[in-house]
């Protein structure tokens, strides 16, 4: 299973990368895109929207199913990736370079509560 060690994760299959400016870049994991299958629709939160930790804020839909995306920590949306809205299949091709949105966290320290790569792999039942 493809779980890069430099990212943080949630049990609900989001990945999180902390950028130099403190913003969090958020996407869905390779495991999530694999489970969903061919993605055909993505809806992202508007820039400026304020999110609570765990709030449902985006939707990814595959041919088979719709899945909610949750804010990993509290914060406000500072960017959304229009490219994946235009071409959702890019997330199937590479889930880690095709991010969904960026969040400015209320408290930078909140990311300490997220899973690391080993923790996420364990949470989806994969020892490797």
């Amino acid at each position: 299973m493809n779980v890069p060690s430099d990212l943080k994760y949630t049990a609900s299959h989001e990945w999180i990368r902390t950028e130099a400016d403190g913003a969090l870049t958020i996407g869905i994991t390779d495991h999530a895109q694999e489970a969903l299958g061919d993605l055909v629709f993505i809806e992202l939160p508007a820039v400026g929207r304020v999110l609570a930790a765990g709030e449902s804020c985006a939707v990814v839909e595959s041919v088979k199913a719709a899945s909610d995306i949750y804010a990993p920590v509290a914060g406000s949306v500072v960017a959304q990736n229009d490219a994946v809205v235009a071409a959702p299949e890019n997330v199937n091709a590479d889930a880690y370079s095709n991010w969904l949105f960026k969040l400015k966290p209320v408290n930078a320290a909140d990311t300490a509560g997220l899973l690391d790569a080993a923790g996420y792999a364990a949470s989806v039942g994969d020892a490797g």
Partner: protein
Amino acid sequence: MLKQTPLNTAHRALGAKMVDFGGWDMPVSYGSQIDEHHAVRRDAGMFDVSHMLAVDLRGPGARDFLRYALANNVDKLTVRGKALYSCLLAHDGGVLDDLIVYFLDDDWFRIVVNAGTADKDVAWLRTLIAARAPQLALNERRDLAMIAVQGPSARERVWRVLPGCRDATAALKPFMAVECGEHFIARTGYTGEDGFEVMLPAPRAVEFWESLAAAGVRPCGLGARDTLRLEAGMNLYGQDMDEHENPLESGLAWTVDLASPRDFVGKAALLQRPPRRQFIGLLLIDKAGVLRAHQKVRTALGDGEVTSGTFSPTLSASIALARLPLGVAPGEDVRVTIRDKELVARVVKPPFARHGKSLVQ
């Protein structure tokens, strides 16, 4: 414990994503289900449909029995090898299953039913046989595997693998079947494309499957099968109709022979239940989601419901089959509730796509 078809190991070897489908461990896709869909519309794909059950009905009076047991009229089957699509109805007119029945000989018909309903269907047919025609024998053919090869190049690829069956099947018309050695080959399918559905002895299934793959036929899973049948405007049992639904409100009136004087199971009930809703297609205009089963449809004449919805790879748009109030006409716009939004969809007459082409503007 899920049931397995003779091709289960072959699916796993190809890296298929497997799902529980009506109690069977079946491949949903082997990679991208959209690529599998396009392979069938543009070239050739194959589906393991061995989870479906063939049952042979044999004995004198088999046709008379089916004239009573099936909603469609087997008297339409005048030529050996001819197939007919029909519903199996309950006495109250609900749909127990949909099936294909083949006329093979004066005292021999073959019926192919859905996987999830197979046990219920066989029990029901045995009950009817005991009451009406106890001389008939019903034989479940779990010894057969079934592989559907579909697409514009499908027949050519089958002939490459079974050159000895080319002469027997080259002139085979749609909805006709013929036996060729150990293969039972029917020009039928569930995709809106040309092709064959082939039954053969289960121990031969893997070799046939691998030969087809070597001939360039792409393995396709249930995911592509669903988007293909929906584009083709074909019903899925359990989603578009079931025992609680009236076939006349499920787009199946063309298969229910109310015109002939013959009596059949469910006829009296249906005559008392004139349809109050219609079964029709939807094309999502607001591209802000995907149509899915059970979404509410708001029309000027009342509410309806999506029965099957998906993303159509051929149209690059979301499509659905839906049960709507009578009087809503093709070309009209309706509103579908998708999550927290009401999105505009257009009423269209299925099919949405067939033979590689979109049929919707």
